[in-house]
């Protein structure tokens, strides 16, 4: 056998090792939402605030909106509330999805931790959450003026994420 062919063996391994090296820095659980660049799913629901007010996906047309999926049972949602309030202070339109929650608990949560939302879509069965591909609250979606999902933040929004990630994305799609 030609000796240079054998040299392909260590080279091939170095190739695999490079992939390993790249993989080291990455979070294997991080991945984009399947809904990226697609229209916000159609839905019909009432709001958390008013059991008689019906809303649907047209709610999210006309203005860039941050849709935050939260629940009273979710500890990280409490911790990210100050950041959401800060985002609301920047004049961003915020809509909440009260996910798999009970009405009175959800309302008590907003009374206690603050309410940055224009309104909250009440989703006690998690059906809108399911259509959004939510698999653990909190999750945040940026929806542009045409109702298309442009950015997805999985999990807790850290204080540093506000300036570093969320605000630039909002500016980009405004």
């Amino acid at each position, binding site marked *: 056998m030609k000796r240079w062919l054998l040299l392909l063996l*260590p080279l091939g391994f170095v190739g695999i090792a490079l992939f390993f090296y790249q993989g*080291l*820095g990455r979070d294997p659980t991080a991945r984009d939402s399947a809904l990226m660049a697609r229209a916000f799913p159609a839905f019909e629901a009432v709001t958390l605030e008013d059991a008689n007010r019906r809303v649907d996906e047209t709610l999210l047309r006309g203005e860039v909106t941050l849709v935050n999926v939260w629940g009273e049972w979710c500890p990280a949602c409490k911790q990210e509330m100050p950041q959401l309030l800060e985002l609301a202070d920047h004049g961003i339109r915020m809509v909440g999805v009260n996910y798999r929650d009970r009405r009175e608990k959800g309302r008590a949560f907003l009374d206690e931790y603050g309410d940055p939302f224009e309104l909250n879509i009440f989703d006690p069965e998690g059906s809108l959450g399911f259509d959004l591909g939510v698999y653990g609250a909190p999750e945040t979606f940026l929806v542009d003026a045409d109702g298309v999902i442009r950015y997805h933040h999985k999990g807790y929004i850290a204080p540093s994420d506000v300036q570093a990630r969320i605000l630039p994305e909002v500016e980009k799609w405004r």
Partner: protein
Amino acid sequence: MAIEIIPEVGHFALMMALVMAIIQAVVPLAGVATRRSLWMAYGAPMAAGQFVFLALAYLCLSASYLLDDFSVANVANNSNSLLPWYYKASAVWGNHEGSVLLWSLMLAGWGFAASAFSTSLPRDMVARVQSVMAMVSAGFLLFILLTSNPFERLLPNVPADGADLNPLLQDFGLVVHPPMLYMGYVGFSVVFAFAIAALMGGRLDAAWTRWARPWANVAWAFLTVGIALGSWWAYYELGWGGWWFWDPVENASLLPWLTGTALLHSLAVTEKRGSFKSWTVLLAISTFSLSLMGTFLVRSGVLTSVHAFANDPSRGFFILVLLGVTVTLSLLLFALRAPRVSHRVGFGWLSRDSLLLVNNLLLVIMTVTVLLGTLYPLILDSLNLGKISVGPPYFNALFVPLTVLLCAFMGLGPSARWKRMGARELTTKLWLAGAGALVIGVLAPLLYAGQWNLWVSLGLVAALWIVLPLVRDVIDKCRHAGSLGRGLARLSPAYWGMVLGHLGLAVTLVGVTVVSNYNVERNVRMAPDVTVEVAGYQFTMRELTSRRGPNFLADTSLIEVRRGGDGRTFMMHPEKRLYLATGMPMTQVALRPGLFRDLYVAMGEDLGGGSYAMRIQYKPFVRWLWLGALLMAAGAVLAVIDKRYRRVATRRGAATRRVTP
């Protein structure tokens, strides 16, 4: 006073072991280069010293666990004062730091054994082997001391109690599974060291393979048992009744097993016939490299798995460097020193040589398939091509046909002769076995289930095609010897090892086939005095109560099971536990094991009104999976006691003594 410094003693012992490893890595090799036998002789005492100090370090960590020294971070994070003593002792390797320490201890143990049993080998060979072993060992000791020190203290804020051992790990299977698996992984380092030593010395003759073969067999036996225990543990502990999930961590243990199996066979060819020389060396390098890669995959967090350790990129980076250096250097050495063209040893189409060639190629294809499926998501992600998952459907789709193909050749192998053999002779020998396998395999599902099933038939034909030719071969061999008793006695342990190994695979295959196709699973609602029937057994809940264990609360139920045929009854009690320290709920499965079927009852959610969801499973032949693995391991060990290895050792010993006064 003396007790308080135990962790520091352990830490110190680790450093001593590292120093000795470095001396052992450098001095004997320098001795070989400069032809100084005194330098070469440094290897054996250093190997022994390393083992002693690592054993001391390991005992120190165990002592910290048993004495509940929560000032040691490792103990505080993984133990609890309420834990029974045996789980305290096994908690040592239930975490990253402790398990690397165990790994290093075993490496030192294998290194010590390799140098103790090799006194009759040529000195330069032994010196090189010891050096290579010590290089690997030094790498791991550095890894422990720099990134994963198990003796780190939590001073001055010592917690009052520990965080507890993960309840999943509080179990007998997990007490024995990791040590067995590590023994296998690490054991291949000896074969690796022999291969590298042979490459360095330029002596790639059949001799090194004869020296390496017993080590390969023993390491392979440990790995086989380790994998089987892991599968058994997953079967009952993870509670889904599954026994293989194609999880990256499982795959990581399967990879060296596959190349290790190829290695065992290729070593046989090289020893007996002098061919496949480079190939054998490459397999020895690959097997240990894959063991190392498994360690990397499990501990670096690059892949998601149910079994992975809590990950840390800096550790991952260190192991990657260790892996990269070891594998690249050994492959480079191989590329530069592998024999250019071995003298051509001729063999024909139907010879044991060509059948073993096919066996090796198939096993390598299986290895590449598993490797590809395991790493493909990682590679795509690195190239920003998105996230995908590769799971059981992919692996099964490729593994089933490859295994059937492998079995087709396996049936021929033991009956074929080295070099060449006429097709007619082989046909005469095997037509009956083949016809028997076909008839029994095709009819069995009809008789067993009353309905024909392609997959069952395929699996059974393959298994029988392994077993029946072996039976025929044993009978043939005895016929030549005159009486049956004398014939059986004359067969060598190596031969019996082969028979047992192949038989083991057939047994596992039957288990896989039957349990995959005839498994019955029912999720039912049960309340006191409700009866359900599953696979001919009647399950009646008799009692539903609560109890308190040492570190958990449990809802427990008593199920009476009545067998349909003879009306025999027995009790099973599944449980649902809440572990107090972690607040983790766990389902305690009730298992009724049997050689031909397991009954499996797991308790689920409280459905309200005094009723519970229960999962009842009937798993025919599931024990055969692990029984087969035990047979395979027993076969590998049996082959080691063959006279051949001892005789050669003493003859060589005599020769060396004569040469060196």
